[in-house]
């Protein structure tokens, strides 16, 4: 059995208590939610936090709610809740697609929305999906709340805009009219990290794309997005040719690295295929065809 180094444990009573504990224990303390990323890293001794602040009791960070023209995800919402949510199924099929292929039921029962974003793993599916959706991350400290667009949230692999004494408390996703979305990933096996994954959010005016959000995971895309492909789609006809071209542009601009999941040329190829497929499916959903 792999065992972690010695660490302290604090059970946070509520949000204010959690923030106080994080401030008191300093930058080497870490909040723990689902623990499916942090605990393996601790057992491998890739992470050696001095104190874990357990935020699983923070019920105020739960819930998926419609809030005006946005949907609010509490940071402690579990993957399984996202997958089961009728609100998500109706408005944000990209998240439902993504959750179906995130890890396995055991992980989905524990892992959280906030934890996924804060882990900032370059292969993280929800980071790509929320980036495609243009979500906003709510970050809370003892001084109050601030919001950060998800496209500015990730500062690099395993680095985010969250300071050591702050917590992500919610994610807000805008609801847009005449919009469809989709997500697809290629993996070597269920539960493996993505070889490559893409998510698309397409808003239509008739047969014209008025807005496109394209998220990419595991291929070195800056802020998990294919900005050049999004730009190319704006105002373009919603055709297979446009989507294939968007895929080609996304493939060109991402920066995958070779590993046992595949060589660079294959990963670029996948980006092209997956962007085209998800745009196509998103547009079909926007038209109410799927």
């Amino acid at each position, binding site marked *: *059995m*792999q*065992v972690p*180094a*010695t660490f302290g444990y604090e059970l946070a009573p509520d949000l204010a208590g959690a923030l106080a504990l994080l401030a008191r224990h300093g930058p080497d303390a870490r909040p723990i939610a689902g623990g499916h990323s942090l605990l*393996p890293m601790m057992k*491998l001794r890739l992470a050696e936090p001095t104190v874990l602040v357990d935020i699983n009791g923070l019920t105020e960070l739960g819930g998926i709610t419609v809030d005006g023209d946005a949907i609010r995800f509490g940071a402690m919402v579990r993957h399984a809740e996202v997958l089961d949510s009728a609100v998500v199924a109706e408005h944000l099929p990209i998240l439902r697609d993504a959750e179906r292929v995130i890890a*396995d039921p055991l992980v989905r029962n524990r892992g959280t929305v906030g934890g996924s974003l804060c882990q900032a793993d370059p292969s993280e599916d929800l980071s790509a999906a929320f980036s495609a959706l243009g979500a906003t991350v709510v970050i809370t400290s003892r001084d109050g709340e601030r919001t950060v667009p998800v496209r500015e949230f990730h500062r690099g692999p395993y680095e985010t805009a969250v300071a050591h004494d702050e917590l992500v408390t919610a994610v807000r996703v805008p609801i847009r009219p005449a919009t469809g979305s989709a997500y697809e990933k*290629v993996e*070597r*096996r*269920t*539960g*493996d*990290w993505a*070889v490559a994954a893409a998510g698309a959010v397409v808003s239509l005016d008739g047969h014209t794309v008025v807005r496109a959000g394209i998220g990419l995971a595991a291929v070195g895309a800056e802020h998990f997005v294919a900005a050049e492909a999004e730009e190319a789609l704006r105002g373009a006809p919603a055709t297979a040719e446009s989507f294939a071209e968007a895929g080609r542009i996304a493939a060109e601009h991402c920066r995958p690295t*070779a*590993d*046992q*999941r*595949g*060589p660079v040329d*294959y990963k670029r*190829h*996948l980006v092209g*295929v*997956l962007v085209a*497929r998800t745009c196509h499916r998103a547009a079909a959903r926007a038209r109410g065809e799927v």
Partner: protein
Amino acid sequence: MSAGLEGVRPPEEWIRAAVDTPRGYGAMKRKEDARFVRGRGNYVDDVVLPGMLHGAVLRSPLAHARIVAVDTSAAEAHPKVRAVITGEALAGLGLSWMPTLSQDTEAVLATDKVRFQGQEVAFVVADDHYAARDALDLIDVEYEPLDPVVDATRALDEDAPVVRDDQDGRTTNHIFDWSSGDRAATDAVFAQAQARDDERVVTADILYPRVHPAPLETCGAVADMDPVTGKLTLWTTTQAPHAHRTLYAMVAGLPEHKIRVVSPDIGGGFGNKVGIYPGYVCAIVGSILTGAPVKWVEDRSENLMSTSFARDYHMRGEAAVTADGRLRAVRVHVLADHGAFNATAQPTAFPAGFFGVFTGSYDLEAAHCAVTGVYTNKAPGGVAYACSFRITEAVYLVERLVDVVAHDLGMDPAELRMRNLLRSDQFPYRSPTGWEYDSGDYPHTLQVALDKAGYDDLRREQADLRRRREAGEDVPLRGIGLAFFTEAVGAGPRRSMDILGLGMADGAELRVHPTGKAVLRVSCQSQGQGHETTFAQLVAAELGISPDDVDVVHGDTDQTPFGLGTYGSRSTPVSGAATAIVARKVRERARIVAAAMMEANPEDLEWSDGSWQVKGVAGASRTIAEIALAAHSNLELPDGVEGHLDATCVYNPPNLTYPCGAYVCVVDVDPGTGAVTVRRFVAVDDCGVRINPMIVEGQIHGGLADGIGMALMEAIAFDLDGNCLGGSFMDYLVPTALECPSWELGETVTPSPHHPVGAKGVGESATVGSPPAVVNAVIDALAPHGVRHADMPLTPAAVWSAMQGRPLRTDLAIR
């Protein structure tokens, strides 16, 4: 009755099981499962002894480096550390090196240099597991890095670094050359095939990559050397407890009667738990040094990186074939990567295991193989993962090669196989490489599989999909793959098969208590095969009692007779045969007692319907239970009966058993991503008589999943520095239920003519037979893209790369 027991009834399932239990053979629930599903199993890591300490192994981060200095002072100063053992310390005891099962030596703890990433360098004993792990970080080892040998195909280059410079005079990484078959006769057929217009030679380079058995329970031991009695008790994850006891006696010089090896419940072995690992030896030394029991259980990464891998065979296969599809001869050259120490576990005379059965199921005029073994800077091992001593590699070679022949000739692979399979009237059949196949009806077995799969319809659907695809429709690439395998399992005849001089025969002892309940003691050890049920059924069938009335004792050398253990699908062929024979001995003793009971002549009795009956006298019969009580009673016993029915035997198999099977796999490949989906898998196995068909099917299910794993996702590759790229379950992927279709099983039954109940081994059949079926299906799907071969694992990237005409080298890091 006391008030507290009123209203207590046996659980429902006990009642049901009693009703459902067959008298002998047949499906019944596994007797051992009740404790497993209720968390009442007892694995090595469950063993807790008073005062027990905990060990941890420091491992090399480098694949090849000279050890300059080891400083353990900081670790020794840790308040919870009781001992730190280094290679140098072991050298003082003469234990820094130990013999392997292949006449080589292997470092217990490195002294001169480290030879693979993950090699054992030091061992810490501490009060608890956490402290032992913490102390590893306090040991300072100074390494001088050396160039590693990573690519097996370069291991014999003149400028290759020498891995084993510990051996006097060694200047290369060459371990052995071994060959089988008639080279001259084979070359003559190939020369003809090359010369004639109506014949040809088909060649394919085929890699069976390094994989790992990855049992859910990792390896470990609890060593307890009693300083007063001088007796060592070793609870350990071993598939061969008796062989381990004898080897510890030989290696460490401990008297054998002062060693007790206990292999309790084992969470999967697959060959991973045949060998003796350095951690076991360190735990023993730790117990001797501290005077306390020492537990060492490796973690997942240690298991994957350092314990016995499997395969790693680079094979060139050639077939001489007529233009109309008759296979005349097969010729193979293998480069075998054995890692840093030649530590494969196999019978002494077989350095390439049973690879010699590479002629498979086909009627060939001639065959020859040559195998060259080399050292590299990788973990040692090589015979594991349900491989039946390299038959996995042999079957994969010939079944892939046959499909390449079909591809090159433009023939249907089913037709090609049917045309060349051995016929039933050829059995017993002596293969060109000297193996005597006991029985089989191969064309029948293949036909059953083809019918079950609906082969002709599958081909029609495939043709239709290909047409639609050519017309521009977005449909998947459909592939249909076949494999026909013959295994040679149940090692083995003592005259030709031994492990370090220990003949591969198995003992069995059977006691019958006065009330007719029986205790069977066997030498083999279950790692999940269901021995406690199957062997009870064997006894029950012979004695006419219920399997519920037979307890099977195994895994404790103080309680069981000597034998070589469980691997190579040998339990039922060898220990199962011993069980049937010892039960028959008991039955014959019972005949004499029964005759005395009924005042008849033993020759006038016949065994009928589970009891001894006086021929022709209705009602004159005695069951085993009645006879057992009489044998222990005041009945005047006849001469030669000592007062019980108990018996022992040792079974020395006259031959191996040769199970076979025909597998059909159907896959879809996503042409855009290269992702493979296994749609169907039809497996028709012939393992002779099935004692518990449900257990047999369970074994097959597991093996088929293994095959999907190896074919599509499992491999341990290395980067250029010799770093292991499969050191965790995040990197080394084993299949889940989601990658497996609902298995479609069938059977044919050709009993083994020499096994007492006609059974053949089956534990590894599906692991052997399924990888080629899956790979053949994927390659078949890719035929429109001109793909003829690609190596496992066929990950999406590997499939796509093959479609682009640049197949990946799957044993090295992807670049």
